[in-house]
């Protein structure tokens, strides 16, 4: 599948991936994230069930401490 991840085009062999599978595939190890698929928030509790498929626009924001 072809998706846009953080404004960059990316290709994956799988036809669809759960959010957790996507994070693992991209080695995104940060624990605190905000994730949106096609403009819709994906809550942390849904990272196993929410699915990324061909054509999706995914935003992953890494949160760090400070403020």
């Amino acid at each position, binding site marked *: 599948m072809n998706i846009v991840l953080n404004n960059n085009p990316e290709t994956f062999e799988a036809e669809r991936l759960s959010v957790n599978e996507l994070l693992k595939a991209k080695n995104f190890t940060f*624990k*605190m*994230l*905000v994730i*949106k698929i096609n*403009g819709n*928030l994906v*809550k*942390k509790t849904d990272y196993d069930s929410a699915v990324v498929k061909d054509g999706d626009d995914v*935003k992953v*924001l*890494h*949160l*760090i*401490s*400070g*403020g």
Partner: protein
Amino acid sequence: MTFEEIRTIMQRKTVGIAGAGGLGSNCAMALVRIGLGKLIIADFDVVSESNLNRQFYFRDQIGEKKIPALKTNLLRINPCLDFVGHDCCLVPDNIEEVFKGCDIIVEAFDRADQKAMLIETILTEFPDTPLVIGLGMAGVGLNDTIHCRQIDNMYICGDEVSEIGPDCPPIAPRVGIVSNMQANVVTEILLSCKL
């Protein structure tokens, strides 16, 4: 736009700020200086000596709760400010009640897990309200890495990489840049609405 025109618009606006620490207290100060009408701000913490290297509090306020201390400081700039302070810990169950009625919300927490909780809750409860996030402001120098980037209704201010630590402390110069960048983004958005 003249300052009078800016002030006339800002005076009709309500800004919510989550956190009254390094980002929150300084962002609030900048907005109050240009005539913000109503501020809703929440923090459960107490002013401590270590805060003075970056937060908008004074030595004689050490030991006071931040919300009443910040109210004192802000009213000295503009006694007409409608200051709505919440001396409490923000959690998913009270965020909607605290921030309802805000034209825009500023995220100014320090812990990453709290930032995640707040952002998720705001995106769920107030999906149409612009959210200005502070992310990455530790250390010294590196002015060029501080930016503002937009994702849908979220505006992220900071360098997005510098985690705070003993050898990378958050201190006034750089924290001030990010907090004022947040205030600048808030102002830009509020002035463009012209409601």
